[in-house]
């Protein structure tokens, strides 16, 4: 065998250098192999929560695209596998059984909303799966499942932390309020929200003068609002879903509802369609929220994400602004994806341990989970609608319309009190 010539050696060295360079080049290091990592979930794509569910899906698909452009997870592309749960909790266990046993997904995340997350919990617990979940209130209170993680920033005691800001604002006023009316839809989320408010009311010695629930599908809220008005409650705390929120806000204006503070836990007042339609009827209402275009919440990446989302939202017929759920839908996949890449495997125990121990940088800011899977520190905001005009969606893109009035750490303005006298 002849000795390699200098030219041949040079070519071999060059080839070797090129191979090493190729192996370490970003494109190759991150080029995903063909076998995707499947993330399975159900999502409310039809039914009462579909407005938000579809918006969440768009955000998740943006994350899927972003993560695949960055090389996927563990060098493999990511594929979202999902089914419509029709906003029907009864559909959820069957969907997750299919995802796990038929579609053989590698990871699971939750649908949107307490009523759709809770039915999946027995499956997650039995199969010992990490379960990132999207806006479920106090779902883990009774399960105490150590692999449950909640991206909604309610806080370590979600039912109470959710409404704490409402009462903090109220009790700072002089004179302090004395009475409260509690009103909730007959559904798990609303009852959880109002249960938390009830706890605060009892803790603060407020006299509960009205405490009732109403069925979903209630068409006219005038009798209910009148009954509440008749109690002359200082505070009115409501937990409900979007069509009821619209009905109650309208009835409150039509009947000139008077109270020192009104609002609390109304889902729907964060939606662009309802904000635009209700317009000036919203003024003065103090309600929960988790993100608003206020200077105190300008986290890295959130504006860029919202630009991508808003480009797709209007064509998809969903919330054109996307301030409520979409950033968190993106974030809960960010957390999961970062954990997988950091741990280097899909081992559920290792992932859960890592997620518990780590503070994640996400588009909704730093996220740290406590022992029960809720945020270690609450960032449940109370916002007050101020200076809202009718029929103007674009006003909600500006600061100063959904003003953060609690907690102090994130506040961007002062509360206007009382609501109406």
């Amino acid at each position, binding site marked *: 065998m002849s000795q390699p010539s200098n030219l041949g050696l040079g070519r071999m060295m060059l080839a070797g250098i090129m191979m090493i360079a190729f192996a370490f080049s970003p494109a190759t290091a991150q080029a995903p192999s063909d076998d995707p990592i499947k993330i399975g979930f159900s999502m409310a794509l039809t039914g009462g929560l579909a*407005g938000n569910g579809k918006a969440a899906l768009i955000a998740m698909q943006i994350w899927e695209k972003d993560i695949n452009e960055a090389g996927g997870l563990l060098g493999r592309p990511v594929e979202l596998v999902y089914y419509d749960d029709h906003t029907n909790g009864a559909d959820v266990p069957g969907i997750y059984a299919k995802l796990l046993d038929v579609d053989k997904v590698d990871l699971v995340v939750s649908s949107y909303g307490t009523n759709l997350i809770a039915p999946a919990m027995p499956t997650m617990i039995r199969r010992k799966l990490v379960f990132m979940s999207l806006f479920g209130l106090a779902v883990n209170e009774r399960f105490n499942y150590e692999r449950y993680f909640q991206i909604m920033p309610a806080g370590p005691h979600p039912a109470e932390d959710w409404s704490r800001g409402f009462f903090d604002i109220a009790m700072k006023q002089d004179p302090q309020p004395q009475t409260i009316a509690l009103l909730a839809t007959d559904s798990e989320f609303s009852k959880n929200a109002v249960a938390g408010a009830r706890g605060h009311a009892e803790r603060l010695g407020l006299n509960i003068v009205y405490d009732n629930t109403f069925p979903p599908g209630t068409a*006219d809220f005038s009798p209910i609002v009148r009954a509440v008005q008749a109690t002359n409650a200082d505070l009115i705390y409501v937990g409900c879903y979007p069509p009821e929120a619209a009905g109650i806000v309208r009835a409150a204006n*039509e009947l000139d509802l008077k109270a020192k503070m009104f609002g609390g836990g109304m889902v729907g007042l964060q939606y662009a369609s309802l904000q635009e339609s209700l317009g000036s009827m919203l003024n003065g209402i103090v309600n929960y929220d988790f993100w608003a275009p206020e200077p105190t919440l300008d986290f890295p990446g959130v504006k860029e994400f919202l630009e991508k989302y808003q480009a797709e939202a209007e064509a998809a017929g969903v919330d054109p602004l996307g301030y409520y759920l979409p950033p968190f839908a993106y974030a809960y996949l960010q957390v999961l994806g970062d954990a997988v890449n950091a741990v280097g495997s899909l081992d559920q125990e290792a992932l859960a341990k890592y997620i518990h121990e780590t503070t994640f940088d996400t588009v909704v800011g730093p996220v740290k989970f406590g022992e029960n899977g809720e945020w270690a520190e609450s960032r449940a905001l109370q916002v007050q609608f101020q200076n809202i005009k009718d029929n103007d969606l674009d006003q909600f893109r500006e600061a100063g319309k959904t003003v953060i009035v609690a907690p102090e750490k994130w506040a961007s303005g002062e509360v206007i009190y009382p609501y109406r006298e």
Partner: protein
Amino acid sequence: MFTLDLFLNAVVAGVMLGGFYAAVALGLSIVFGQLDIVNIAHPAFIIAGSYVAYMVNNAFGIDPILIGVAFMPVFFLVGVAVYGIYYAGFERTGRESLAGLAFFFGLMFIIEVALILTFGVDYRLVDAPYIGETLHVGVVDIPLRMFVPFVTALVMTGVVYLYLAKTFTGRAILAVSQDRLALRLMGASPVRIKAIAFGIGIATAAVAGALLIIIGPVEPSFGRLYIGRVFAIVIMGGMGSIGGTLIAALMLGVAESFVQTFYGPSWAPLVAFGVLLLTLAFRPQGLFGRL
């Protein structure tokens, strides 16, 4: 806490709500009450009416009720076409009881999905100058958002009642539910009469949908919340009785309003359906139905 102003407001709110329920149930009173067709898709047609009102109101700013009335002929033609398919596929072959029901279930889902694909799943509302305004009459508050639909519902019910009572075709519709053969002997085609009746039933959904979206936001699957209610009203009022449908709707509306005001809103459906069961216990044929 019982006070006179709460009582009066509960009555007025209940009557207005009942009027709206009558508008929603009116079409089914014709289709189910008189033609014995279990059109479970009727609430879906109402939601379609809501979306038509939303689309035109959003684009041109026209009042939703005017839009509903203007689209009644379109909905009528759709109803005639739907009946044609139903008759050819099920009624003619005697398979209307189960297969026909499945047909309307399928139609309900088709309408829902079509609305989702066209409009998306977000909640939709309309704009009208009377939404948000209230009439104050002494201690009684009358939100125009409920009052205008109530008046419209009464007018529509009255027009349908007079049509059925005073016109040849209207009386033929009443006759077809009683004796098809006798109607044929009178020179009227039962199939054609039923098609017209079905068309009228669906036409009322155009207006009922406009009223629904005036009262509150809708999304494509919202109609499912009304399925139980509309059938209960039609049965309670007496099959085929337009007047009975109105009275039953008012009774249900007032019962709901009273319970919401004085006893706790979560009891409202139980009481409302309790009234239905009580009525049927004493009058199995409904308030104005024939035995």
